[in-house]
């Protein structure tokens, strides 16, 4: 029989930080905000793509690809929202958009859902949280993580393992047996699709996707690593949600890019709340969660000062 657990939400309701009446309107799903957001998203993406085209024969293509990369890696944020089924009202639409995002950034959607569920169950608990980014012990470790080399190593190893029909011991813990075959199939299909795209480019001689997609993705990933570090790294490795997660107050363009996931502590309290009502949830919970008013940079100043203190 399933054992009952107390979720952060149930705890917040019991402690009076939130009431059910306050929460109910915040949880309502709608397609409208997401479709508006997505329309602007496509426009910005078209803009960065155009910049690459305009800069094609000059060194300016590198900053243009970097900008494109920042957009591309933020498909992670959209996919993350889709994992929670909170972008659109219907699960089908969340799954379709999530899978497209996953294809762009090499992250099979089904696997990510199961991994991310475990992250929400064991947030910031060493040895249990599958998405835990360890606190760097040295500046070297800090910089190496930001290169995204360890991230890509892990991702390529992961998808290859799944395509070969294997799971790690941790993955066996959080993926139900009846879904193992589907996880393997997803990985194989994704790799086949990439192979098909590359064969298509070789046959047609049209290699532009490398410049519009692949190189920008690798150029942009350090930015996503920089942002992902601000969510939990440097916060205590304890189960208490008000301590182990950081909310970062950032400017509107960054909130647009990350689909409001800078309100990360609020998201962990109530993952059911769609991205577009997270700012309102923040108003309710801001005195009960850890808030970094200086934004992403402030979070990194905090992380770097902790590395410095540990070395002193």
């Amino acid at each position, binding site marked *: 029989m*399933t*054992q*009952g*657990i107390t*979720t952060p*939400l*149930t705890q917040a*309701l019991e402690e009076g930080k939130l009431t*059910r009446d306050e929460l*109910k309107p915040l*949880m309502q*799903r709608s397609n409208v905000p997401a479709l508006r957001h997505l329309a602007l998203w496509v426009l910005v993406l078209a803009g960065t793509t155009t910049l690459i085209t305009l800069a094609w024969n000059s060194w300016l293509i590198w900053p243009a690809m970097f900008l494109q990369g920042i957009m591309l890696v933020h498909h992670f944020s959209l996919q993350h929202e889709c*994992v*929670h*089924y*909170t972008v659109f*009202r219907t*699960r089908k639409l969340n799954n379709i958009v999530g899978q497209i995002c996953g294809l762009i950034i090499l992250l099979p959607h*089904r696997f990510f*859902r*199961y991994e991310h*569920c475990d992250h*929400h*169950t064991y947030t910031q608990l060493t040895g249990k949280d599958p998405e835990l980014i360890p606190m760097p012990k040295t500046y070297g470790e800090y910089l190496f993580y930001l290169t995204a080399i360890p991230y890509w190593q892990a991702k390529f190893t992961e998808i290859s393992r799944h395509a070969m029909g294997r799971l790690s011991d941790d993955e066996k813990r959080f993926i*139900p047996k*009846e*879904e193992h075959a589907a996880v393997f199939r997803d990985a194989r299909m994704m790799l086949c699709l990439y192979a098909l795209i590359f064969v298509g480019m070789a046959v047609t001689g049209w290699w532009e996707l490398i410049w519009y997609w692949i190189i920008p993705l690798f150029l942009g990933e350090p930015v996503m690593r920089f942002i992902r570090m601000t969510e939990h790294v440097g916060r205590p490795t304890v189960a208490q949600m008000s301590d182990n997660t950081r909310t970062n107050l950032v400017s509107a363009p960054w909130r647009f890019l990350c689909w409001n996931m800078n309100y990360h502590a609020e998201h962990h309290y*109530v*993952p*059911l709340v769609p991205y577009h009502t997270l700012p309102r949830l923040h108003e309710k919970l801001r005195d009960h969660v850890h808030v970094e008013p200086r934004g992403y940079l402030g979070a990194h100043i905090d992380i770097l000062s902790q590395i410095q203190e540990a070395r002193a």
Partner: protein
Amino acid sequence: MNDTPWRDVIAVDELEKAWVTRVQVERRTIAVYDTPTGIYASLALCTHGGADLCDGYFDDHVIECPLHQGAFDVRDGKPIAAPATRAMRMLEVRVRDGQVQMRI
């Protein structure tokens, strides 16, 4: 045939309209769902991670877990969205004299 007698658990007027209501019957926590096609009830714990479904999101006939967003159709308890894979334990429900009754 189920010989357990019917018992009143909550007045229909006390249910949250088009939402899920938590009802405590002795040591059991029960989720009662007010849907467009009638009232349904299940044990409140999610079969995936054990979270309290009464704190979840309810829409039409679907209850979504507050922790991992696994979802179930409350008409038959079947899981309809990952990570939920096992059905909910449904309870027999009827309405008599303005009271929601169950055999528990």
